[in-house]
Structures are given as structure tokens and as C-alpha cells.
């Protein structure tokens, strides 16, 4: 994925998001006028990149500039938003309970409050000894199963 390095956080976020949006809307894309928000739920954000930065700084080294651009989960969400013209709010959460429940709660609030017509909810976790896992669900709006 151009612009993102070292970590599979952003590529996996984008992969599940695009599969989800393609299932919902196919090649036509999100309908004009639809405000699709993004809620990205992750306990630790891009852990692999954060650990690389920590180790590099600790050793007195220099960090590559691309790490700045991927230093927050918003960047991956912004990549999806740009490719799919998702004009709703971008919200990233670190779950304090069940990640899906937290994410759905935020998505419902954004829709009920009127800033989003639908919400792309993405759940992702990076674990040291396991492959990165992510799930994307489109909530509300005009999407059909």
C-alpha cells in the first residue's frame, strides 16, 4: 500500500474496509449524498509502528518520515475515505469493553445525532504472536445485505 510502511495495520484495515464496501455497493461506489462515517476500534492502534518508533528513538536513531504520516489510526481511515468518498465523521476508539459494542455504540450515536447516514465500523487488533485480524461492518444507511 503506497505511503504506508513496516506494519500491516493500515493494509489490513483497508483490505477489510474495501471488501465490506464492495459487498455493499459493488463498483458503483457509495451513492452521492450519502455521508458515510468511519469508526475504527483498536486497543493499541498501530502497535508495530509505535514499537519501531519507540526502539528507534530509544537508540538515538532517526525515524523515516512515513512513520509520521501513519502515526495515528486516522491515517488509514483517511485513506479509505479518500478512495470511497466517505464524507462522514472519522472517529477512532480504544475500546473500554467489548470492541464491537463500543463501536456500534459510537456508530449509533453518530447516526442518531445526524452527522452520519451510515457508518463503516472497523475492528482491528495487532498481537505479537498472531496474524493481525480485522473485521469491517457497514451499519445503517442504504446498504443491502
Amino acid at each position, binding site marked *: 500500500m503506497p*505511503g504506508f510502511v513496516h506494519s500491516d495495520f493500515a493494509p489490513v484495515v483497508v483490505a477489510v474496509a474495501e471488501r465490506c464496501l464492495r459487498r455493499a455497493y459493488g463498483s458503483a461506489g457509495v451513492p452521492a449524498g450519502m*455521508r458515510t*462515517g*468511519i469508526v475504527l476500534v*483498536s*486497543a*493499541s*492502534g*498501530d*502497535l508495530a*509502528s*509505535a*514499537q519501531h*518508533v*519507540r526502539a*528507534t*528513538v530509544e537508540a*538515538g536513531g*532517526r*525515524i*523515516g*518520515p512515513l*512513520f*509520521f*504520516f*501513519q*502515526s*495515528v*489510526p*486516522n*491515517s*488509514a*481511515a*483517511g*485513506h479509505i*475515505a*479518500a478512495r*470511497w*468518498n*466517505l*464524507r*462522514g*465523521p*472519522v*472517529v*477512532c*476508539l*480504544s*475500546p*473500554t469493553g467489548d470492541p464491537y459494542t*463500543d463501536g456500534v*455504540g*459510537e456508530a449509533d*450515536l*453518530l447516526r*442518531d*445525532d*445526524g*452527522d452520519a447516514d451510515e457508518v463503516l465500523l472497523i475492528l482491528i487488533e495487532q498481537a505479537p504472536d498472531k496474524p493481525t485480524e480485522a473485521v469491517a461492518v457497514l451499519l445503517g444507511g442504504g446498504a443491502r445485505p
Partner: protein
Amino acid sequence: MVEARVAQLTGVHAVSALGRGAEAQLAGVLAGVPAFGPVGRFDTAARRVTVAATVSEVGTLPDELAAAIDAACRAAGLDRAQRAGCALLLAVHGGPAVGPTPAVLAGQLATRCGLSGHTRVYTSACVSASTAVADAAARITRGDVERVVVAAGYLVEPDQFALFDAGRALAVDGAVRPFSAGRRGLLLGDGVAAVVLESSTGRRRGVDPVATVAGWGRAGDAFHPCQPEPGGTGLARAVDGALRRAGLPPQSVGYVNANATGTAQSDTAEAAALRRALGGHASRVPVSSTKSVHGHALEASGLLELVVTALALRHGELPVNAGWLGPDDSCPLNVVRNRPQRTTATHALTLNAAFGGANTALLVGVG
């Protein structure tokens, strides 16, 4: 007739390099003296830029956040029993390589401060805190909850400093010059803040609210992972949302505490957003960015700036936009320069934008 539910700020507290406490923030932004200086907290020898706005004697982030929450609750007149059941919305960086995870931190803070309601942690970069405030206001006004504490914190540390330095985002001339010709970028600053948002229960306790969060809006650019949309369409839609919720026209906005970080493209995009949202009023309404004195507190910036915006509006003087060198044709705004500007305005916007094209607008009301 049923009284419309509103979200009032009944207690506020903040810490930054301008000082400790809400009044220190107001005095600092009105004095307009930038608080930037050499970073002594960690080694910056390998960095292009070596300055930030840091608090001279600062505790750990958990301790500072707990103290801020306690202070805001005291300011709101909440005793221990009244804090029980209160929700905590926390805005912090999402991926610390050291210290407690955000969720653990939220749980610890809720326990320490006696808040036993729902917790949520926002890690949406520079709109984390403002999104939390918008969500809190939404939940209060729709009747879900009576009272929410929003807390946010960022203390300048070596990893984010190195990242911003590597990204050439920091101002190499050691000054933040929002909307000005010759601006070179942003500088980081400590920021820890907490506010109590309530429905009218605060007034029923005899508490005089600091201000009301009269409107809010959140919108995305759909443009780029980390650059703002040059036309400011996303931020303009966030401002539209804030005005619509408040039921007010653009002309009612008497001040804008802009997101303006002192970065070339971002400030230009924000000026475009203001023109798009406020029309001709954009060239008349007084605008400044208090980041020019307290620096960019990242995840906490939205809450620190809400506090200073509310206090300044209530006080009747608008903060100076420090670092001004001269006008930039791409930012045709009425920037507050040289000295604070007296005002009788009753409403002000505080704006924030972040990577991912995330934008928020909060509309504060007094009187």
C-alpha cells in the same frame, strides 16, 4: 412548556505551559506571549527543532489527568455522591509504547475520581477531545445522561516529538504563526484539561455555568490520509452542523478560535472553510489560534481550546494570534493581532482538524 435540553459547561480546568488552572489559561492567551522554550524533558540533540511549550514541573499523565478531573468536578460543585454514575470520555494518544493502555488508564481514572458511569476512549488524533465533547453534548441533549466528564491529555514526549520532527511539521524558526505570511509549521505543547458537561442540573444546584455547548459538528474531508482538502469542504460542513444544531446564522458567530497550526496548507484550507461556511462574515469575524501561545496539544488540543474559548468569551476579550509577521493573501481573515480585542459577542466557534480528514466544530455560547 418543556424546557429544551442543553449541554452546559459547569466546571472546567486546564494545565498547559501557560500555567495551572483555568484562570492561568485565560491570562496566558490574553497576554499573548508564546510559551515555547527549549525542551528539557528529553534529549532533542538529533532533532531539527528543539523547542516546545512544556510545563516546568509536571506529573505523570495519569496523575495530571486525575488532578484535572478532580479540579473540574470541584469547580462544578460536584460532591463524591454526585460524581457517581457520571460518564467519563477520555481523549489520549492511542498507541503508547509505554504506560497503561488507554482503556486501563480510563478505568484507573474513573476509579480514582469516583466516576462509575460509562467510559469511552477517543484516539482520533487532533479531534479526539472535540469529538468527545460533541458526543457528550449529543448524549446530554437527547436525554441519555445528565452529566459527563470529558478529560484529555497530552504531555510532550520523545516519540511524537521525533515523529513530527521527521515529518518536517515543526516550525524551524521556533514560532507558531497561524494564518501569517512566513509561517513555518507547528510546535507541540503540553495540554491536560477536564470539563464537566451537564444538562440544567448544574443550574438547579446553584452553579453558574461557564458556558453552553450550543452546537457541534463532525465531518470528513474524503480527500487524503493526512492532508486537508484545500477547499475546506469537510471543516465547513462541520461548522454548518454546529450552527444548524444551535439554530443560529453565521452572523451570530463573534469569534473563531481556529484550528490553525501555523502550517502552510492547513491554515489556507481552514480560511477557505470559514469563507465557505460563514460567507462574507468570514472576513469580518475576529479569528485567532491560541496554539500560537500554548502550542499543539494533539489529542488534548480540542479540550484546552474549548476551555480558553469559553473563558475568553465569558470574559469579553478575544485572544491574540501571536507570531504574526504579515498578511497572507490565501488567508483573508480578520486576525486578532497585537492586543486582545474587546467583545460583547455571545457565541464563538472552536475548530479542530486532524489526519484522516477528520474535522470538528464546537459552538460555545455565553449569556
